């Protein structure tokens, strides 16, 4: 199989009923507990029943892997460990703070150097661009990673429809600002709104998607719902959340982390184990849910699909 992502819908046989999934997890927890600490096991209170049930019918799955055979990160961890500074800098606290964030209705405006500027609402996006399942590795610049089964459609599909003019060289993504619902926005140390961008040819690569859901269900607020960017060969901060504006521009846009600390966060931010962050290495990563470290792969393992974009570039300069 040469496919690089899960294109087909999931075989129903692969989908485990939620009860089985949850009981399996409790089983793993309790056995891990016993193995880990016979001494403490006696004092452990009964496991609380799992109250973090997903709201909109995601399909928890086991046995689902990316194209390299890595199992997907459990739904609970994907949805409770999030870098989302509009809410808080505390990754574990985004989920509770985002619980009242309204992801519906959602509207995205595409404008700038395009022949057919347009405003899409969420349903139009789904109907027009037909999201599919894509299992991607997500590598954070902080050297942790996950494997996430997204639902989304290639950015290229949308760009083809709005028809960029010949002057358009970059795509700029802008994240929503709702200070009433996003307490982190009161921190004026950051140049809000969160902005990110891609070179047009990067955005046209088939791997780059707008995600509209995950785990077969809707996209939770803490993961970037309404809709978000996912660029799996770049560090996570390039994949901006809760997009409301997509602008085609001729100049490289100012992006959030690059503006804050240009020596630490490049515009390209391609996952590269050979170019270290000034304060930490990028050659290894901790996969959430695992102990020990994994070797970080060039372009996060998507080298075959994206290396051509950077031919002739010095990656130590354009990091």
């Amino acid at each position, binding site marked *: 199989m040469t496919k690089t992502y899960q294109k087909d819908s999931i075989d129903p046989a692969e989908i485990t009923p939620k009860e089985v999934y949850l009981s399996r997890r409790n089983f793993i*927890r309790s056995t*891990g*507990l016993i193995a*880990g*600490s016979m001494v*403490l096991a006696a*004092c*452990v209170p009964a496991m609380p029943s799992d109250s973090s049930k997903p709201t909109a019918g995601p399909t928890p799955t086991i046995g689902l892997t990316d194209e390299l055979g890595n199992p997907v990160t459990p739904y*609970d*961890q994907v949805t*409770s*460990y999030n870098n989302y500074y509009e809410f808080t*800098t505390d*990754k*574990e606290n985004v989920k509770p703070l985002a619980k009242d964030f309204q992801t519906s209705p959602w509207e995205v405006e595409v404008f700038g150097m395009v022949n057919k500027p347009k405003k899409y609402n969420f349903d139009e996006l789904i109907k027009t661009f037909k999201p599919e399942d894509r299992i991607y590795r997500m590598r954070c610049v*902080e050297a*942790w990673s996950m494997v996430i089964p997204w639902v989304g459609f290639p950015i290229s599909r949308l760009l083809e429809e709005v028809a960029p003019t010949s002057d358009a060289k970059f795509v700029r993504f802008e994240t929503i600002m709702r200070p009433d619902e996003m307490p982190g926005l009161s921190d004026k*140390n*950051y140049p809000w709104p969160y902005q990110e961008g891609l070179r047009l040819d990067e955005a046209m690569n088939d791997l780059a998607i707008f995600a509209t859901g995950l785990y077969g269900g809707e996209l939770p607020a803490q993961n970037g719902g309404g809709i978000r960017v996912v660029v799996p060969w770049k560090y996570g901060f390039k994949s901006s959340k809760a997009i409301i504006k997509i602008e085609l521009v001729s100049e490289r846009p100012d992006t959030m982390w690059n503006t*804050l*600390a240009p020596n630490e966060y490049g515009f390209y931010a391609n996952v590269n184990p050979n170019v*270290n962050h*000034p*304060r*930490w*290495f990028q*050659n*290894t990563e*901790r996969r*959430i*849910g695992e*102990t*020990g*470290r994994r070797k970080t792969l060039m372009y996060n393992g998507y080298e075959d699909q994206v290396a051509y974009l950077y031919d002739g570039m010095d990656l130590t300069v354009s990091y």
Partner: protein
Amino acid sequence: MKHIRPTLLQVLVHAGGIIPLVILAFQYYSNDLGANPILELEHRTGRLALLFLVLSLACTPLSIVSGSKEPIKRRKALGLYGALYAFTHFAIFVSLDYGFDPGLIFAELTRRPLIIVGAVALLILIPLTITSTKFWFQKLGPNWKRLHRLVYILSPLVIIHYFMVVKGNLFRLQGNYQQPMIYAGLVIILLILRIPAVKNVFLRKINPDNDSPENS
């Protein structure tokens, strides 16, 4: 004469030293440290090590100010709890985090500034921990005090290590610098109080009778 009855402060020090470790072990084994438990273990043991370091540095000034010998008697235990958390911090880094991979660990220890600073602080901590017993105190005589002044180098290193782990831009103060700032402030104050001129002029003025031989 031996004390059989522990003092209240003594009880608090030992409870404060042991309970967080028990809680941490309990949470780890019951899978209650969030999605990234190893990082949480590293952060928490690191912060606890720094907390006990600051508390141990506060003992001498507190004894001088209060005129009581009680704080300074607790200094050794506080320092050793700091060492316990620091070595646990390092042990987690080597084992759970890097899986005892010698190549990876060597590269981190030699080439990554954050880790180098932490490792130097840890190296300094080793002789301080070993010589914390009465045996070494008597054997080293005046050199014991000189040796233990290394804590004045160790403390700033730990603070730098803490600042380096924060994501953001220190020069523009963009990022989560509140906690490192608080600890840096405390360490700076506690070190300034040790400058002989400051100590003599300021602290002795508060309590002119006190002249503890253990002051350092």
